[in-house]
């Protein structure tokens, strides 16, 4: 038996150690598992935190919840999306396989909230609330819960507004201030200046804006509260 073991040991071979990238990806997976468990211990959210609950329930079934797990790190997210998780919905090859927009260019590409979060330098929840889909957008059906009317939850997929879309900030009105530039900047969204000549009460979205201001501090109630502005498509 000793001879056999010696023989086996001699032929054991020494595989290459894992690369730093592989090790980091594995550690990230573990950290996400740890974070999921930590999140699971929290109390049930209430009120305007419902959107977060919704996202957590979809955990492991969509890319978006993975993005939420990864928080602000897109780079660290990428290997996971390519190799496992939800089948790599954001990976180019997955899009091509599904025949969706990125492959054909026929439909607008759904953009996860984390892209916008990075562009705006805000958290995912805030980014989701800031974004609105526009009529005809490619929001996945399971997530299409009223956002076409200008409502958005913290976890919904949406897309950048198309070039030339007329948008406004529901909080501060016409898109003529630096505030708009700050909100829009980096996300590739256009700024609509066309309404600057109309009186505030005549502009589309005036009712929502007024309601938002009635909430105090410019907070828009329809966004779920807690933020100061949101984007509203102009039909």
């Amino acid at each position, binding site marked *: *038996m000793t001879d*056999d*073991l010696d*023989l*086996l*040991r001699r*032929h*054991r*071979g*020494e*595989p*290459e*150690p*894992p690369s730093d990238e*592989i*090790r980091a*990806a*594995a*550690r990230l*997976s*573990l*950290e996400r*598992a*740890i974070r999921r*468990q*930590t999140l699971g211990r929290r109390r049930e959210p209430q009120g305007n935190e419902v959107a977060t609950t919704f996202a957590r329930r979809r955990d492991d079934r969509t890319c978006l919840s993975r993005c939420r797990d990864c928080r602000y790190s897109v780079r660290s997210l990428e290997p996971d999306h390519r*190799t*496992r998780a939800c089948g790599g919905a954001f990976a180019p090859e997955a899009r091509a396989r599904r025949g969706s927009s990125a492959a054909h260019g026929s439909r607008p590409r759904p953009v996860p909230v984390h892209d916008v979060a990075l562009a705006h330098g805000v958290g995912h929840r805030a980014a989701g609330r800031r974004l609105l889909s526009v009529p005809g957008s490619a929001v996945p059906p399971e997530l299409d819960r009223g956002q076409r009317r200008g409502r958005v939850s913290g976890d919904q997929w949406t897309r950048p507004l198309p070039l030339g879309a007329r948008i406004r900030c529901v909080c501060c009105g016409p898109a003529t201030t630096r505030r708009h530039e700050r909100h829009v900047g980096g996300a590739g969204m256009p700024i609509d200046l066309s309404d600057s000549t109309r009186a505030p009460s005549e502009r589309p979205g005036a009712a929502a804006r007024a309601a938002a201001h009635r909430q105090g501090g410019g907070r828009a109630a329809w966004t779920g509260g807690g933020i100061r502005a949101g984007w509203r498509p102009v039909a």
Partner: protein
Amino acid sequence: MRRAPLAAGDASDSERIAASLEHPESFATIFDRHYDVVYRYLARRVPRAYVDDLASMTFIVAFERRASFRTESDSARPWLLGIATNLLHEHARLDRRERGKLLMLGAEHRLDGHADRDVGRGAETDRLADALATLDPEQRDVLLLHAWEELSYEEIAEALGAPVGTVRSRLARAGTHLRSQLAKARSAAELNPCQEQR
């Protein structure tokens, strides 16, 4: 009252795992300590394409099952290798098409550590790989954990969740089987030396 998490360097594996029940983030230390060992073990047993995922999955499964870790064991290494072994078999069951590949034990690595890749040595390696492939999976697990990972009988028993006596008997049977297979292969090679130099 919640205890403060232990510092990374001053606690045994069992203490870290026990602490992770209350502070899940403590489990990351177990990863840092043992990832390389688990990775190399899997790399010796499955083709490289599967190693990354299986190694990563090992620690996620370990984290989820950490409550079942026996705190009397100081090192988590046998426990982790046992999880890795189970995942390896589970993977093979899920995808039977890959079974053939999994049986090519260490095929991609078996010559890696040997500079003298002469024909005779390569042939011996092939014979050994073939003999290992004919082993019963349970016997193979015991044999490789003992020979390659240098686990004791008790540690193998802990890793595989089997009694120590069973480990001993599996190891003995594996040795007998391996010996007879190698003897057969060597005698066949002596009878037909041309085939040996393929």
